[in-house]
């Protein structure tokens, strides 16, 4: 199946604005982020050595924020969109 990952700000510089990623059925949001991380030279921006998503990564999925800790529990469907926000700095 294919899912799209969109990145903003520093993540966009590192991993592109939008990438379509091929994943086996049953893959989770965490799998998708790990796969994306491997496409760039700055994988450690997104995941740590144990392939856990960094706690500062904000993940939007189906218009909701999900915690990096829960990303391994959420199974993707073909055509899904995941949005990744780096730490924010507005205001």
């Amino acid at each position, binding site marked *: 199946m294919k899912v799209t990952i969109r990145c903003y700000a520093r993540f966009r*510089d590192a991993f592109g604005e939008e990438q379509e990623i091929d994943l086996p059925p049953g893959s989770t949001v965490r799998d998708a982020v790990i796969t994306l991380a491997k496409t760039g030279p700055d994988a450690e921006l997104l995941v740590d050595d144990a392939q856990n998503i960094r706690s500062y990564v*904000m993940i*939007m999925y189906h218009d909701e924020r999900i915690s990096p800790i829960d990303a391994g529990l959420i199974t993707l469907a073909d055509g899904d969109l995941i*949005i990744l*926000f*780096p730490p*924010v*700095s*507005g*205001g």
Partner: protein
Amino acid sequence: MIAITHEPIDPFRFIESAKRPETGGIVTFIGTVRDDGIEALELDVCEEVALSDLRKIAEQASSDYHLNTVDIIHRVGRMQLTETIVVIVVGASHRQEGFAACSWILEQIKEFVPIWKKDICKNGESWHFTK
């Protein structure tokens, strides 16, 4: 008004419109581009999420601090030194609630609203990125 704009912000119309008979104090925060050795600042945004977040923050502040009016206008794109990044105007019946609400709104924006600052310097550009 709750808005994200690419144009310069005029805070005065929001302050004027906050003047109501039931309001005793109008507290305004204007964030401006500070010279930290930069040439300019560039702000990126995920506009649909940011706007929805600002609306929720305004609603929560109105309720929690009993506000009569709330305006939040955040600018994005490129800004020069001293230009206005954000304007928050709250109209409160009582001053303490006004100060508390305005400060709370700003902290909420800084905590989770998807807006990012990038320093534009003579020798390059770099995102603000505090883990």
